[in-house]
Structure formats: C-alpha cells, structure tokens
C-alpha cells in the first residue's frame, strides 16, 4: 500500500480555506425501537431483540414510536430549528445486509426539524473562548442498522472477508441525524471548532435526556465532511466524508488529517475523489472507502406503510417548555457559581467532565474538590484505560463521598487515591473500601501523642525553635511523625498536638 502524501497543517492553511460539514447520529435511549416494540438494550445476546418488523419479514408493518418523535422535536427545538408542520418518512434503498428490508426507513426532503443553529464555545489557545454560530441544516428521524462481523479477512474488515455474520439487535433503534450547513471561514480553528461542536452537541443531548450519548459505545457517532477551496476564492471544493469518528479527540484529528491530505492532492495538481473514508483511531489516518453514491442512487420515495407526522403547534410548544437551560448560558452561570477561572472551566469541559463535576457538586462536594478529583485523578485514569471519563466505574456520588471522608478526617488525599483504585476495581462503596483496605487515619491521640513525643525527643533543636515561637519549624516534626505513622495520620491534628506539647 502506498503511503498517503500529506502537507503540513500550516502549508494547507497557506494555500487553502477549509469547509466542514458535520453529520452526527444520535441513538435515542427509548425503551423500544423506532418502528416496533423490540427492546433496545446495549450488549444483549445476538438476535434476541428482534421481531418480524425489524427483520423485514413479509407482511410485517411498522408503527412509529411516539417517544422518538417527541425526542426528535425536542432536539430540533434545542437546536433552534423550525419544526415541520407536516413531514413523511422515506425509504432509502440500498443493498447491504445490515438492513434486512433492503431499505432504511429515514426522512429525505421532509425532515422533522430544519434551519436551526447552535452557538458553540470554542477554546482558543492562549486566548479567550470564542463563540462560533454553527448553522444547522436539518435534524431527521431514521433507524439504525444491524451489526456485521466480517469473517475470514485478516483485519475484521470487509475486504478479504469470505462471509459476514449479522446481528439485528441494533437494526431499527431510533436515530436522529443532525446535519450542519457548511462551516466556512474557520481557517486554523477548523479542527477545534469541529470538536467543540460535537462536544457541545453531546452535552445538549445529555441535558435533554434523550440519549446516553456514549461515543465509545456508538450511541453518538460523527461523520466529518471536509473540502478545501483555494485561499480567498470562495466556493466549496470536492469533499470527502470520513465515517464513524468515535471520540471527540478524533473529530479534531480527522479534520486536521483530511485538510493535510486534500492539500497534498490539490497542490500537486491532483483532485480529491468524492468518497467515504474510514477513520483509523490507532494510526490517526483515513483510508479510502467507497465512492460516494449520488442521493438519487438511493431512489428515495415516501414510505407507503406509514402516515405523515404532523406535530400540532400545541404539542411543539408543550415540548419547548420541557427544554433544559441553554448549555452556553448554563456554563456561564455555573462558572460564576463555582468560582472557576476561564482556564479551569475550559479544562473541565475539555476533559468531558462538566456534567460529572456538576453532579459531584450537587452530591455535596465543593467545586474545588469536585474539579480536583475529576481532572487530576480520574481524567488520568480514564486516559490510562483508554476510555472516556464518563465511562469510568466511579460515580459523582462516590467522588462526593470520598471527599466527605477526607473532610471528616477519616482519610487523607493519598488514601483517597487508593479508594479510587478500589472503586475502579469494583470493591464496593467508599466506606467499605476504607474498611477492607484498612485506610483510616489514626485519630487515636494516644498513639499520635507517643509518635509526637518521639519526634520531639529526636529533634531537640527543632523543638526549641518552636518553643521560641518559630511555629513554621513544626513542619519538620510533622514530617517525622507522619513517617512513623506511615502516612496514616491527619497532618492537621499532628500539628495541633505538637504545638500543644511545645506551648
């Protein structure tokens, strides 16, 4: 395989203006599928959540899930979209075994929501956050496809496989596809804008409570369209569509990579092929997929088995009243409430920990403590485990409980880290882990007093300084006591005892 030529990111920006289009698929967390009553639980045994409708058996008829329509309208409203007064489902025809019907029920020229926008807070390196308004083209309802395992190929990919195994549990789960208009004029900020958009959209989806929005489980998936136009020329170049970019970091990397790849092709007099590209998380590159079909190749036509959806204006207004606070407004409000600096807030959001910190504070921790544990300790562990921070087996309530134990003097910060080890290993509640791992601080003044006496006896010079009023010298004695107690003492209490004895 020949290696792909790349320009550097800076070279790409010298000669070209990037344009992006982002398509985000959100898998709704309804109890049942879009068009049938099958359950939607993640991770069930293959082909155990299926029925004649989602298997496309002859004669089976679809029936629309009211909750999914409601979620679609709420997402549309939260994105400042207009809601269609009347719209239909359409069949998208293609032959691929992930849809047993040989078509996907989707929406085509009549999406339920259209013409919206989202104001995205984009972090700027070394500067103030910038607000970028991303125009939303549409949000429409459709169904997810089944999952294929390709057998016989070296890499589990389709090429070289000799047959494929299909599980239809996921086929028919409600999806909302949210499509932006082309995002232009971003220049070097393009990768950061793409990431910030997907991150903020994900926050919005979580706030709406319509999906668990787990990128690592595919319940929110991004496709990145990218094209380059000669600098200052305006217009849009030929685009590539990079599919299934499954982490926020990868959204940013995929935009950057495609900019560099397109720039190399265009600078050498070549042209960009309109095609889908596969994103490789491990190597950070894209490889060629199939040539992109024209929309007409899908031979869309209105779904004859379903009647139109015509949400009454009363229903739309009822749903508008259920919308959560606008995330940008909420972020500003909470930043002021928590007393975080811009940088602290940006780090919290950037780590994907905004909601976690919020819930930890709600569970009783101080803002500083909540941020400290999630950003310094747990972000590192998520990174080491290669999972998103929200996927860690530690809940905000547990983090608040650990901090509560620190505040009560039961454990210190060092022990708290061991409690997190225990929580991640599934050893029980924080209190149980403190007990089973023997982590409690020695609060018994008898044992502490003896250690303090030993420290004073061993360091007469230091003791004399403290007697003479040089209280700062107590640090040396505290260190000595902590060493004898193997760290299992409350440093504040040790200091009190030293000063009492040397008063």
């Amino acid at each position, binding site marked *: 395989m020949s290696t792909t030529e790349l320009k550097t990111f800076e070279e790409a920006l010298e000669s070209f203006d990037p344009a992006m289009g982002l398509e985000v698929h959100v898998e709704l967390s309804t109890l049942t599928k879009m068009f049938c009553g099958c359950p939607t639980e993640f991770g069930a045994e293959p082909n155990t959540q299926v*029925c004649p409708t989602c298997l496309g058996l002859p004669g089976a008829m679809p029936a629309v899930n009211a909750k999914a329509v409601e979620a679609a309208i709420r997402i549309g409203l939260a994105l400042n979209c207009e809601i269609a007064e009347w719209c239909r489902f359409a069949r998208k025809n293609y032959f691929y075994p992930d849809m047993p019907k040989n078509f996907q029920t989707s929406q085509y020229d009549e999406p339920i929501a259209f013409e919206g926008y989202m104001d995205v807070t984009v972090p700027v390196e070394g500067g103030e956050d910038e607000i970028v308004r991303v125009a939303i083209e549409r949000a429409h309802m459709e169904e997810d496809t089944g999952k294929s395992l390709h057998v016989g190929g070296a890499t589990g990919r389709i090429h070289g496989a000799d047959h494929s195994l299909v599980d239809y549990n996921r086929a028919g789960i409600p999806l909302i596809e949210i499509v932006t208009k082309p995002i232009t004029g971003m220049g070097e900020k393009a990768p950061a804008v793409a990431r910030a958009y997907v991150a903020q959209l994900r926050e919005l989806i979580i706030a709406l409570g319509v999906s668990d929005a787990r990128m690592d489980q595919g319940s929110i998936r991004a496709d990145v369209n990218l094209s380059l136009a000669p600098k200052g020329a305006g217009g849009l170049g030929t685009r590539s569509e990079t599919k299934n970019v499954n982490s926020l970091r990868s959204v940013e990397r995929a935009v950057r990579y495609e900019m560099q790849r397109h720039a190399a092709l265009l600078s050498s007099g070549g042209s960009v092929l309109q095609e889908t590209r596969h994103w490789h998380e491990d190597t950070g590159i894209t490889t060629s997929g*199939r040539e992109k079909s024209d929309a007409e190749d899908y031979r869309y036509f209105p779904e004859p088995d379903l009647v139109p959806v015509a949400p009454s204006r009363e229903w739309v207004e009822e749903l508008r009243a259920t919308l959560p606070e606008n995330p940008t407004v909420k972020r500003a409000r909470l930043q002021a409430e928590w007393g975080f600096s811009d940088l602290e807030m940006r780090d919290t959001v950037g780590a994907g920990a905004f909601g976690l910190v919020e819930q930890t504070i709600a569970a009783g921790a101080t803002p500083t403590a909540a941020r400290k544990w999630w950003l310094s300790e747990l972000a590192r562990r998520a990174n080491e485990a290669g999972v998103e921070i929200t996927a860690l087996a530690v809940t905000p309530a547990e983090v608040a409980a650990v901090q509560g134990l620190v505040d009560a003097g039961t454990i210190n910060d060092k022990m708290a880290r061991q409690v997190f080890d225990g929580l991640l290993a599934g050893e029980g509640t924080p209190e149980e882990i403190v007990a089973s791992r023997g982590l409690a601080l020695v609060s018994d003044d008898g044992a502490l007093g003896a250690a303090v006496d030993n420290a004073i006896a061993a360091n007469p010079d230091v003791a004399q300084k403290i007697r003479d009023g040089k209280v700062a010298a107590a640090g040396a004695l505290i260190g000595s006591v902590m060493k004898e107690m193997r760290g299992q003492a409350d440093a504040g209490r040790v200091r009190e005892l030293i000063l009492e004895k040397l008063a």
Partner: protein
Amino acid sequence: MPARAEISRDEVAHLAELARIDLSDAELDHLAPQLSVILESVASITAVAGDDVPPTSHPIPMTNVFRDDVVRPGLTAEEALSGAPAVEEQRFSVPRILGDEQ
C-alpha cells in the same frame, strides 16, 4: 416524478448495478424496452387524474399514528434464525459482501 415513459438502456444497466443484479448485454436489450412499456402503462394513470386529485403517498388522509414506547415480546433467537439459510454464532451468515458499508 414527471410522466416520462422512457427508460434508457443505460438507466436499466445502472439500476441493475445498484440492485446488484448482473445483467448480460442480451438481457439488457431484452429488459429495457419491457420496463419502458411498464412505465408507459403507469404514466397513463397520471393522464386521467384531474387537477382535483393531488399526488399522495398514502390512500387514507391520516396523520400521527403513533405507538407508545412500551416493550412488546418479539422473537427468540431460534425463531429469528429459523428461516436463515446459514447461521453462525447466533448470527445470520451472509455471503461475502460486495461493495462497502453504507
């Protein structure tokens, strides 16, 4: 769709490709005119529909037929797979897939 009763040989060839049907030149020569005849017959219905008959995708003027989000029992894996020509690891086994994921 406009009332167009012609379908070209190239269009039939393209549709066959989309449908993953391998047609020989002789079959294309044979089928293209037949499909044109079918389209002509359908087009004749358009001709008799007056201005008072709007185009529709559903014969009954209904909207908002919804189902509550309540789980209903479906099929067991055994039942689901009982009609499959080949099964492996409790999944439908299908021949090598031509082309790429949609």
